[in-house]
């Protein structure tokens, strides 16, 4: 069977590319070896958000008295949360299937192997059938990085060491949980299991949490988590896992921490091996497929989008990359820009940011000024967040008077941050933003408040 485009991988990059390609009249085949929706939908963004929302509802109920609401016998039922999670996933996966069908995209379940290229195109084998296409989009995503720590493999085999896949299937809340890695995924899981009643410890190699999150915000987040009872071991390196004990080194000392379960959350690694990339000579650099600004690989008509190119491993980056690929395939010149891609931590409180941090702005030599205000400057935030200040911090390019970056901590920031991304993309100047009308009262008004500080 001959196609205009074969997409390998049905995660965010793959299924969205499929939809857009089909809509543009390309005869498209999508091949997925596990579940449509990929990690994002099945074992990443969406299921974790279901869990976190339950935690948020639970916490709101616990603190409802502050808001004049009296509730009795509050309990978080993890099994019911998991049932709801599965229902949400099912709804969304069904939605993807129907969208693909609507856009005439064929979907094949199975493991795709690139056999090579002949005069008709790229030959892909799935379940002993061969498919041929003029173009390929590699969207094979990524897998959890398993660090070379002694005892980790045994732990995984015995089931007390978990990745993001297994932890979402736990039917009971562990009494204690050690999370290795204080990045976004680690923090979100730590936050849920802490709310659900686990004794949670996060072990992080760096001296701060949240990866490249703004330091000031990350410190506020750390203190908030600590108040909730999560323990943090920063600047600590895990050496060994033995009999559900995690051994780590901190300030030259070896410390042991017992835990019922251990969650591995130390990053992800692009899936570039085992499906025949080498048969067509796709260049892989530092374990990821090398792509240009149009997401083209070194091989003609072969594109790579999503985690597999390792640029910014986020589902929304994958979406946009998928669109850039399809636009270029259909002859519409489009380039990928990574300067205004937002990041979000969906815990309670939420954290969101976009653009440069102080560190990156200084490194790049920008001449910038910082303006910041507590989120309390928003009336709605005060009404809904008793006892938490929050912070909104904006970096302004002194010369161009445009936004370089924005960092927020406080609920709803996840929904607000795209607006700032838009301001960065459109290179709006401070004076332009001052002319925008924000709905009142909303938490988003904090952006306007901060901008008027200039």
């Amino acid at each position: 069977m001959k196609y205009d485009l074969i997409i390998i991988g049905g995660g965010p990059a793959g299924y969205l590319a499929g939809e857009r390609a089909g809509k543009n009249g390309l005869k498209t085949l999508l091949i997925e070896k596990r579940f449509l929706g990929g990690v994002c939908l099945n074992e990443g963004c969406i299921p974790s958000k279901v869990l976190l929302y339950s935690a948020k509802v639970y916490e709101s109920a616990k603190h409802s008295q502050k808001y004049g609401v009296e509730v009795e016998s509050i309990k978080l039922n993890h099994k019911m949360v998991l049932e709801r999670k599965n229902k949400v996933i099912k709804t969304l996966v069904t939605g993807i299937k129907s969208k693909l069908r609507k856009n005439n995209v064929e979907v094949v379940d199975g493991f795709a192997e690139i056999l090579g290229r002949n005069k008709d195109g790229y030959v892909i084998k799935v379940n002993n059938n061969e498919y041929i296409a003029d173009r390929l989009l590699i969207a094979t995503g990524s897998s959890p990085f398993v660090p070379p720590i002694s005892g980790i493999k045994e732990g995984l085999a015995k089931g007390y060491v978990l990745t993001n896949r297994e932890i979402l299937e736990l039917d009971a809340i562990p009494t204690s949980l050690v999370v290795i890695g204080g990045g976004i995924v680690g923090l979100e899981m730590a936050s849920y299991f802490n709310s659900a009643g686990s004794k949670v410890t996060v072990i992080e190699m760096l001296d701060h949490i949240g990866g490249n999150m703004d330091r000031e915000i990350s410190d506020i987040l750390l203190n908030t988590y600590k108040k909730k009872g999560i323990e943090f071991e920063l600047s600590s390196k895990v050496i060994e896992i033995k009999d559900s004990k995690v051994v780590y080194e901190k300030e030259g000392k070896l410390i042991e921490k017992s835990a019922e379960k251990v969650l591995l959350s130390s990053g992800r690694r692009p899936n570039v091996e085992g499906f025949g990339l080498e048969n067509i000579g796709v260049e892989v650099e530092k374990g990821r497929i090398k792509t240009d600004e149009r997401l083209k690989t070194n091989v003609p008509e072969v594109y790579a989008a999503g985690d597999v190119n390792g640029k910014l491993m986020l589902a929304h980056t994958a979406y946009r990359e998928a669109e850039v690929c399809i636009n270029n395939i259909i002859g519409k010149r489009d380039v990928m820009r990574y300067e205004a891609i937002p990041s979000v931590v969906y815990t309670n409180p939420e954290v969101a940011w976009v653009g440069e941090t102080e560190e990156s702005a200084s490194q790049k030599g920008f001449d910038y000024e910082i303006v910041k205000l507590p989120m309390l400057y928003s009336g709605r935030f005060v009404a809904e967040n008793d006892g938490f200040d929050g912070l909104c911090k904006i970096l302004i390019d002194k010369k161009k008077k445009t936004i370089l970056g924005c960092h927020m901590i406080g609920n709803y920031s996840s929904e607000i941050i795209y607006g700032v991304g838009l301001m960065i993309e459109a290179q709006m100047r401070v004076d332009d933003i001052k002319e925008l009308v924000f709905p009142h009262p909303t938490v988003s008004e904090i952006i306007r408040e901060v901008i008027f500080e200039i």
Partner: protein
Amino acid sequence: MATPVIMPKQGQTVESCIITKWHKKKGERVEAGDLLFSYETDKASFDEEAKVSGILLDIFFEEGEEVPVLTNVAVIGEENEDASLYNPKKVSDNTAAVPENAEISNEVKKEEDVSQETRKPKESLQSSERIKISPRAKNLAEKLNVDYRFATPTGPEGRIIERDILELFNSGYVFTSAAKAEAKEVGNLKDVEPSGIGGRITTSDVEKAKESFKIQKSDIELSAQIIKDETEYEEAPLSNIRKTIAKAMYLSLTTTAQLTLHTSFDASNILEFRKRVKENREKLGLEDITINDIILFAVSRVLPKHKALNAHFLDDKMRYFKNVHLGFAVDTERGLMVPTIFNSNKKSLNQISKEAKELAELCRKGTINPDLLKGATFTVTNLGSFEIEGFTPVLNPPQTGILGVNTIVMRAKAQNGQISYYPAMGLSLTFDHRALDGADAARFLQDLKKWLENFELLLAC
């Protein structure tokens, strides 16, 4: 109802087409599907059929006229219908092709005397000149976020009017608001590639353009400096050989249609062969056979199968040679010389190697018989020893081909799932496109490549 016939848009890059023939006359009846007119781009020709039936009321462009795509070229309708409404020439004289917007066309009507030809946006900016712009146009520029300094004025006395701003907007020069504030120092927008959202020009695009403008400027300043320092040079008369080479090169490039194709081949085989020759040379009494000798030999064997390249192009006829007289370029102190190995197709590799060495030596000494510098049917030139990876050899007319030999570079290839490296040697073939087609030349290169990769088989032939 009258229906305009428009010049179709063939491909993304085609901006205008030339009408080559009208198949119907003004006033004639046409049926849908009738051949209406033929037109061509710079590469292809097309026919346009009538899409509706009726009387061909008017034809706005004659045969031979160049028409921008999507412009009305004619009108089909009922008898006595008014076709002038669709005449783009008339529109441009009065109201111009401005979108149907009452406000805008009122303004344009007031400002008359506009010529059609200069409707393209101005690409270079002279910030020093005072810019005349109507207040209405200025407001629109502000609204659309375009920089009016880049507009081409088509209003009276060189004034920018509203439609110029619309033209600028439609031509894609839209800035982000920050970029617009930064754009003052941009000299030329032609090379700016918008990278922003919706194709907007961003501050970084402006930065890049400024940078390239600075470079251009500094080049000019540098040139000016060089001109100033009049004492900083020496003059020397050209040697005869340099004069001859200069004349030949100029003649070659001005009188032929040269095109170069590049390819490369896996040189493992010939390198291995050369190694074996070296090891057994003395034992077998062989010449010191070089890679260049191997190439000369291969060319002498492959050329007879590609007679258009073993030929002379004599304007009105081709002269095909039965034997291969192979010229090869020799670098000498006095300049480039090209001696000929006559009947090379009948000579063994060892003979070719020996003769090539002798001829090169005679060239270097300057004692070569001029007859040995003539009569070649094809030439080989080698810049491989200078580590050149690709170049454009210049033909030696009336020869139809010259092969350039490049250096060896290591390339990767995938075989059975493994990446391996092989020595790749580049070949650059310039040929006279008047004498043969690209595919003919490509076939020769393909053949040569095949034999060089299986060199020992060639020796057996």
